[in-house]
């Protein structure tokens, strides 16, 4: 495995506004001969929006150039920890694009959307089986929204019981979305520590759980990639105090068909359809964040709910204790088509996705732990965290430098500087769809980089050299935010010319 030679030419990528020419256009929408009524002057557009003006050939070239400057799972290895960058099956695009789904209006009468409703209902059934919890909502748009929904469900549950509880406990290794969701839900935050083995510190936990605790938010395995060996005791501590347990499904890819969050003791679970269930990440989204709950929390689920009446399926709004609606319609339906198809392609063998995910991660870990620091000396699950602290101490090379140099090897860096409890963290999640050779390439690249740290650290500091840009001035971007194209600049440049 060798690094790409620097000096490869990347063509310039003008902004679409820079490709624009006045009077050019691509689309000609249908027009009529009908007279256009006047809009009252106070409401009428005074000056046109400066949208791009270009022909279709230029438009196609523009987006093609941008795609060329983007690295996806389709391009190569993308071991971004806690994001589960698995292969996105291509048949899903064809299925989501079927006119019966793509062109189906969400206000269509239920009896004319039976195929869509049945797909959603069946997806719910499979998700319930995987979580070990019976009642599911598909409505939340992403994992974060699933988290917030879960917290709102807790609040409604306790309000219904007349119990005043105001605090949520999260792990110190928690993804930032957990505390952010806690704030948006109007709860106070308490943090519990992780012990030397990578499990929740039970003594610390017992001291913090009391009658004001609403619940725990936890992902298991944790962001360290470790299964909490004390999870049964953790569940008991919270349940004994009358509190609930919320499962952050970001790491579900480790345990599908192997351990169910409901059986671990969790009462509310969110899934990330774009992680565990193959919805493509889309450069940042869309995703899907369904939530499953125990029966006693089901009355509070968002509406509408997808229900079955004999052979028919419908949207049911009649749930007086519902927390309400968290998103439009019944959820991001196109995402459901893909996740449903993914699950139907494996059947009960979905378990193998977790087995291979865990195998792949342990293999990479075994071959790197002699070269990078391993903060917790245990077998991992679907991901693991290394520290580049040894490289920093010995050669002044940071996790950031390692990440940037990986780019020159044609590999997307892992997550860096997270979780916060590990200094110079590198969080690596290979996923189950990677063949062994890709894992070996990654190991080789990481080992070479460790060697380069000693023999030629300046190579790492200068990296990347094989991408369209070198390291960016992020300080400038933050101090002087330029967040849209400045049309005036172009006019001034044209006036000078």
């Amino acid at each position, binding site marked *: 495995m060798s690094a790409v030679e620097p000096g490869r030419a990347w063509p310039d990528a003008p902004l679409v506004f820079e490709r624009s020419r006045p009077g050019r256009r691509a*689309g000609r929408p249908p027009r009529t001969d009908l007279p256009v009524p006047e809009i009252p002057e106070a409401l009428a557009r005074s000056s046109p929006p400066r949208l791009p003006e270009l022909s279709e050939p230029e438009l196609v070239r523009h987006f093609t150039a941008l795609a060329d400057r983007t690295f996806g799972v*389709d391009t190569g290895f993308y071991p971004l920890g806690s994001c589960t960058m698995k292969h996105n099956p291509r048949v899903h695009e064809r299925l989501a694009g079927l*006119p*019966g789904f*793509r062109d189906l209006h969400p206000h269509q009468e239920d009896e004319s959307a039976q195929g869509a409703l049945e797909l959603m209902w069946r997806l719910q059934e499979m998700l319930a089986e995987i979580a070990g919890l019976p009642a599911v909502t598909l409505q939340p748009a992403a994992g974060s929204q699933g988290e917030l929904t879960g917290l709102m469900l807790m609040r409604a549950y306790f309000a219904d019981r007349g119990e005043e509880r105001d605090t949520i406990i999260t792990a110190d290794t928690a993804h930032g979305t957990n505390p952010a969701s806690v704030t948006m839900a109007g709860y106070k935050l308490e943090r519990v520590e992780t012990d030397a083995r990578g499990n929740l510190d039970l003594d610390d936990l017992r001291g913090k759980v009391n009658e004001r605790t609403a619940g725990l938010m936890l992902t298991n395995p944790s962001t360290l990639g470790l299964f909490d060996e004390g999870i049964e005791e953790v569940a008991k501590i919270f349940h004994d105090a009358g509190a609930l347990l919320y499962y952050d499904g970001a790491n579900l890819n480790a345990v599908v068909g192997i351990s169910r969050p409901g059986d671990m003791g969790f009462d509310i679970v969110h899934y990330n359809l774009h992680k565990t269930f193959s919805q493509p990440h889309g*450069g940042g989204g869309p995703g899907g964040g369904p939530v499953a709950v125990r029966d006693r929390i089901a009355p509070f689920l968002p509406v509408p709910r997808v229900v079955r009446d004999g052979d028919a399926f419908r949207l049911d709004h009649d749930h007086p204790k519902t927390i309400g609606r968290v998103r439009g319609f019944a959820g991001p339906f196109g995402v459901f088509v893909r996740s449903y198809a993914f699950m139907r392609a494996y059947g009960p063998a979905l*378990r193998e996705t977790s087995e291979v995910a865990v195998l792949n991660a342990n293999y990479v870990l075994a071959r790197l732990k002699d070269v990078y620091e391993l903060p917790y000396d245990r077998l991992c699950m679907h991901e693991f965290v290394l520290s580049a602290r040894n490289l920093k101490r010995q050669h002044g090379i940071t996790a950031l430098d390692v990440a940037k140099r990986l780019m020159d090897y044609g590999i997307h860096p892992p997550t860096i500087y997270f979780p916060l409890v590990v200094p110079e963290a590198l969080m690596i999640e290979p996923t189950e769809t990677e063949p062994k050779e890709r894992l070996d390439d990654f190991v080789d690249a990481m080992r070479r980089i460790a060697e380069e740290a000693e023999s030629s650290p300046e190579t790492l500091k200068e990296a990347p050299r094989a991408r369209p840009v070198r390291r960016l001035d992020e300080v400038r971007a933050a101090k002087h935010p330029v967040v849209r194209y400045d049309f005036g600049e172009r006019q001034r440049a044209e006036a000078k010319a």
Partner: protein
Amino acid sequence: MGYLSITDADREEMLAAIGVSTVDELFEQVPPGVRFDRELDVPQALGEAELVRHIEELASRNVHTGAELSFLGAGIYDHYVPSVVDVVLSRGEFLTAYTPYQPEMSQGVLQAIFEYQTVICELTGMDVSNASGYDGATVAADAVFVAKHAVPDRAKVVLAETVNPQVRQVVKTYAPGFGLEVVEVAHTNGVTDPDRIAEVAGDAAAVLIQQPNFLGALEPGPDLVEAANGAGALPIVHVDPISLGVLESPGAYGAAIAIGEGQGAGNWPSYGGPHYGFLAARSDYIRRMPGRIVGETVDADGRRAFVLTLQTREQHIRREKATSNITTNQTLLALAGLATLSWLGPQGLREVGETCLALAQYARERISLELAFDAPAFKEIAFRTPRPAREVIRRAREHGVHPGYALGRDYEGMDDILLVAVTEKRTVEDVDRLADVLEEVCR
């Protein structure tokens, strides 16, 4: 099996390298008490051909907008999605990349988002846009959260009743966690009265209105925004992106935040999603903006480059004090929006708007039903029906025409009002057919 690459030989080599004999040993850290020891009770696996057949069968049992002449709108619209969108959606790089945390790997996505942000600012007359929110309803909750922090001494938000019911429902779901009271202002003949806003906005952090509103009518936007500003509340205006070639931008008449559902600009209806919500604001609020923001900078060689910026607002840094918990957003759908708005250009967007206006006017005149409201419309008109609108819909569909949305589903006392939506995909002949069918079924 499925999409796995592993072979038995691979497995053996890997287990040896790890130093265990079986895969089961890797799961010893899972306590026996929580192990799942049976097979998952899910349907058996399907190969690709059988999978396609099964799912095509499900799709065939849905009546989509190609299978009947449809005038359904009410927040989701059958506007034309141009083929250039496929260039964005089908390129594997856009499809399968994630959030551009490593900018050197993602300049294409980052630049596209920067262009999207610019387009949204142009449409709405605002200074800063984020990289998208979940949908047109949740961005309203996002905007209210911004207002809550911008006007911290006020604990109320005012919603016009003419705002999309789903948008109002989502705001009401989020409001208790934000510690905000929600007050709604009823409509007056299908629009909102600025005096009624002024009456209740004196202790509100924000006022949310929609233009055009859910009943299809054009609101007195500038007057409503003035009433909100006069009361010290942030005006939030929910707009239809397709209308912004012919309707004034909210920024031009004093709005603080502009939001909306992007679906009509570049996404198919897809039974409700995924789509994209947009949120743009005046520069005063940039540090309180939720969601990703892409900024321009330079690299070590002075080349122009793009990067996620002001990340200290976001959950992965600011955690419990973040401006939002949003992480995954709707980037791919927003980029489809960018491609569509670029395909239209300013002239095309204006033409779509004019076609909508013209057809809506034609529908008003041609359909023999009474108008429910006097106010001018953009692309949706509310008609009074002699029998319940739901029944009219059922009967009309027997003739192969879906005439629209029954407003009685959301508004008390409106069981006899039918909301008809036109888009540039409908023709004069289509409207003639609708008029004939309605005449027939309303006899």
